[in-house]
């Protein structure tokens, strides 16, 4: 495997996780964030995660230092000019992503692969109007990036087949399991998983069974590791609701994806799950 120079934009949970995945495989990483405090927090995350690897005997102290040495913390986008691959992992706002890809199109070599770690925004729309849209692709990690094996490699309207193959191989080299998907709302996982939450909410709303009973049934009858309501509480009910709304709207209000009023009320009430101490279950 040849090592590459990989830019990662956004040093939040996702960006820092992706930087770690790349550095562990020996790639030179430039982790970019405009906010110095966020970069410092990301540095702390990398330090503590790798220290734990040393304690567990997974890696030596030397390997830890080497991996840390692979990561350069930068705040100026011009520093990404030498990158072979850039992975953008900023918050899910189209205007923000469009600005970043417009900048990257100017700064990076025209054969550099430009990847967006989006879960809900159209790759075609991000690449629209930019020079060399054939090298702009979706590259969707799942949270937490160092743990979850899947990467959805997403082909926008103008992404080239050759670049799809390069991105697919890159995901494999990172030790991930890539799948290919066309630029459709929710891609694979966030689309096909919608009924797990939405239909459970509907069944609950129609009083066919209550929350605890539905969770119990899905685990004991279905073999799912977590019930749909425990899972929403863990993900965050607001996050789950926003994903459903996004898929619903991107399918032009297709009835199959219609969001739940019960879920909307939970969001309005600020009952967002574990993070607020209360969601479908009480954690206080």
């Amino acid at each position, binding site marked *: 495997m040849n090592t590459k120079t990989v830019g990662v934009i956004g040093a939040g949970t996702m960006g820092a996780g992706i930087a770690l995945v790349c550095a562990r495989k020996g790639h030179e990483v430039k982790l970019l964030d405009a906010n110095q405090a966020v970069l410092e927090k990301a540095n702390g995350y990398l330090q503590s995660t790798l220290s734990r690897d040393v304690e567990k005997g997974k890696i030596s102290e030397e390997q830890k230092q080497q991996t840390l040495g692979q990561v350069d913390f930068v705040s100026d986008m011009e520093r990404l000019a030498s990158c072979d691959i850039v992975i953008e992992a900023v918050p899910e706002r189209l205007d923000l992503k469009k600005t970043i890809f417009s900048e990257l199109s100017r700064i990076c070599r025209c054969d550099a692969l430009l990847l967006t770690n989006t879960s809900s925004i159209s790759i075609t729309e991000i690449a629209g109007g930019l020079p060399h849209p054939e090298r702009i692709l979706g590259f969707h990690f799942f949270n937490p990036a160092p743990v979850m094996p899947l990467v959805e490699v997403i082909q926008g309207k103008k992404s080239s087949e050759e670049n799809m193959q390069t991105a697919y191989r890159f995901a494999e080299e990172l030790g991930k399991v890539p799948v290919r998907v066309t630029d459709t709302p929710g891609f694979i996982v966030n689309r096909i998983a919608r009924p797990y939450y939405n239909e459970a909410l509907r069944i609950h709303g129609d009083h066919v069974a209550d929350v605890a009973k539905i969770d119990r049934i899905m685990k004991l009858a279905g073999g799912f590791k977590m019930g749909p309501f425990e899972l929403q509480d863990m993900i965050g009910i607001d996050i789950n609701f926003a994903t459903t709304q996004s898929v619903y709207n991107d399918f032009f209000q297709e009835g*199959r994806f219609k969001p739940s009023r019960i879920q909307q009320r939970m969001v309005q009430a600020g009952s967002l799950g574990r993070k607020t101490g209360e969601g479908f279950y009480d954690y206080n």
Partner: protein
Amino acid sequence: MTTTDQAVALVGKSPLYAELYELLNEKGYRVLSLGEALKTPEEVQLAVEVNSLDLKEKEEQLQALDRLLPPHVPIVTTSLAITATEAASWTLHPERICGFGTLAPLAERQLIEIAPALQTEEATIRKAESFFQSLGKESELVEDEVGLVFPRILTLIINEAAFALMEKAATPHDIDVAMKKGTNYPYGPLEWADRIGLDEIYAISRGLHRDLAEERYRTAPLLRKLVLAKRYGVRSGQGFYSYEQKKGREA
């Protein structure tokens, strides 16, 4: 293990038939066909009816059991494609009809859902519960709606996977891998459907669409066509995947 020579009448064409036949035998029940039950109706302790795809046949077989068996004998019926209340409405003794729902393969089901019809009497529910308990399964009571809880939710997931496949958003393999690796599903939705039986999933989808009459429950055209072509999945050799080659290798 139950030590009993109790007789259970088992009728129907759902993929659950073969699974239940085996499980009932294993638990020491004598399994009677409709014809056998006709000869010795007084021996039958309980009847199980499991048609989902052909509702005309479901109606005929339930009515035959209802005519044949003394009124105190409970009849449990799959409420996967139709509500238990509607099935009970076809009979002269609706109070002994009780719905239930599960999906093949039964070895993977620790729990079976029971859905009493509006007409079901309490004694029937208790008998249904102890029957499933004797099969080594836990049970949960849910209200009567097409597809109950687990079969309904899984059907919608499989249906959405079929839409994505029809649109060629991804290959069957990539769809299944994504759901297992991206969100920890025990099986990918398409391979899961092949193991359950596409006919069963289609019957549930069609039943939900018929009874609840919403766009939300529209069956993916690809799923419907596969069932019409008798590609039911693993047991017919072809479904979303082909199993012919594998069989050839084994043989």
